[in-house]
């Protein structure tokens, strides 16, 4: 295996303030995020010679964006499939491009773009296809399983059936992430904290999921500039190293809204013990050293599935584990300190990762966790990135 540990780094980050204005062109957000990231990295646009786009208004945004911004030096460009699970993979692809000498500064960029594409978890464009004979999230439209949240709801019901537990306790995830969002001026739910009573008053959308278990559709864009560690050390901001990478697992056992072995869709239904995830060895750390954690949170239960998938707690224990402030400000594992998809905007991991860079730089403002040196983002289908600071 080619070692990636600390050979590349994030030299600049940019993001836009979340809005919910349907008249705003998502490309405007993308352009602003990229120019902000350049300023943050102390680069002029002409130094950006690589671009990778994840979510964007349309295929071809990898051409549109450099055209809009007049980027004169792009010699490596790529656009991935529009799916949120691919955020770590997009960053990894930027890392490979830098390590292979294909580009010196790769702008890795994505919009949230969900305002136009999703409404309460229903994908309006029908662009994503092909899991379980339907959509990528277990959708089965002829049977009425027609929203993105349907598969997550089936997984959550399965979890409750298998392990017991009080479904209302899931409110701890939604309420805690709002607490974090309250400390983040760019988050949609900044200034809008909620209580457990608000959670319980929230209507069911796809029972057992309530409205407050759903991520927030909105407009925002995010950019991280990947370069060599050496170049990053010359940037104005302290370097944040890409220390470990892990790809997105696929196959009958893996579903982005479920934990392995839960028995959702074609998964087997069997005892689960988290394996040694290669991302930790790649980064040269143990799981216990992670100080801030980002988890995919398109729907609240997905946070629990991610914690169990990676072994932060044992099978069936995550619902109890997130009670009592463990993931809240001052807790043992601050989680989704940007507010996440549930309370900032559904960014498919991009907002989470920009936030982890801020935490590692000490730039997270009111949400800052003291002394962060190791941070991780992960999804239930095992894609992950570990970032570290000197």
């Amino acid at each position, binding site marked *: 295996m080619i070692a990636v540990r600390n050979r590349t780094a994030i030299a600049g980050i940019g993001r836009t303030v979340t809005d919910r204005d349907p008249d705003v062109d998502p490309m405007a957000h993308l352009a602003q995020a990229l120019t902000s990231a350049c300023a943050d990295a102390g680069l002029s646009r002409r130094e950006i010679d690589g671009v990778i786009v994840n979510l964007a208004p349309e295929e071809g945004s990898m051409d549109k964006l450099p055209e809009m911004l007049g980027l004169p030096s792009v010699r490596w460009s790529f656009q991935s499939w529009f799916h949120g699970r691919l955020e770590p993979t997009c960053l990894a692809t930027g890392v490979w491009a830098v390590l292979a000498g294909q580009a010196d500064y790769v702008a890795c960029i994505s919009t949230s773009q969900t305002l136009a594409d999703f409404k309460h978890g229903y994908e309006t464009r029908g662009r994503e296809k092909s899991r379980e004979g339907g959509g990528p999230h277990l959708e089965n439209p002829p049977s*009425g399983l027609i929203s993105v949240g349907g598969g997550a709801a089936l997984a959550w019901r399965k979890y409750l059936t298998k392990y017991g537990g009080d479904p209302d306790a899931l409110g701890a995830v939604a309420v805690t992430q709002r607490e974090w969002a309250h400390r983040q001026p760019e988050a949609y739910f900044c200034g809008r904290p909620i209580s457990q009573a608000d959670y319980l008053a929230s209507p069911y959308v796809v029972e057992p999921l309530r409205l407050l278990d759903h991520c927030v559709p909105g407009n925002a864009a995010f950019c991280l500039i990947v370069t060599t560690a050496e170049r990053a050390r010359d940037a104005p901001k302290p370097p944040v190293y890409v220390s470990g990478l892990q790809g997105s697992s696929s196959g009958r056992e893996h579903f982005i809204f479920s934990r392995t072995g839960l028995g959702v869709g074609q998964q087997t239904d069997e005892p689960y013990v988290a394996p040694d995830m290669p991302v930790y060895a790649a980064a040269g750390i143990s799981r216990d050293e992670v100080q801030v954690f980002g988890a995919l949170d398109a729907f609240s239960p997905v946070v629990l599935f991610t914690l169990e998938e990676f072994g932060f707690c044992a099978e069936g224990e995550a619902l109890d584990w997130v009670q009592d402030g463990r993931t809240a400000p001052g807790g043992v594992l601050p989680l989704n300190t940007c507010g996440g998809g549930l309370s900032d905007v559904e960014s498919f991991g991009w907002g989470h990762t920009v936030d982890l860079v801020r935490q590692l730089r000490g730039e997270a403002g009111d949400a800052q966790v003291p002394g962060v040196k190791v941070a991780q983002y992960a999804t239930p289908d095992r894609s992950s990135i570990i970032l570290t600071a000197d």
Partner: protein
Amino acid sequence: MIPTPVNWLDVGRLGRPLPRLSATNRPFWEATARRKLVLPRCPACDRWIYPISSICWGCDAGEPLIWSSLSGKGTISSWVVYHRVFRPFLPSDVPYVVLEVDLREGPRMIGAADRLHPEEISAGLAVQASFRDADDGLTLVVFEPEGE
């Protein structure tokens, strides 16, 4: 004949989402129209192939799959209740229930519930497949309590 959808969310004349059809899955929908539940099965390893596919997911024999009948009996393994209307469903459709069913023969299948009130549902409840004409030529598999 079921209309051929262009998009996986295409909706038929009577307002139901249509399945994406191909040579691979057309026999399933032709069978539901005859009130039969069938799935492909691998003659080499006897596995049921679900989601419907053109190749066995569990062995390398590579033998052509054979469409075979299932009892339609199974138990509920998970379920959700839709309270919010997502088009093309109508306000009068909610609340409605979608089930995940462990079929007796093995496959775990998604299907709409019929004659099952949300309050009556629990994991392990025995159900059986039934059929409901939902659109021009489209007959859905629905699950109802066993023995009714």
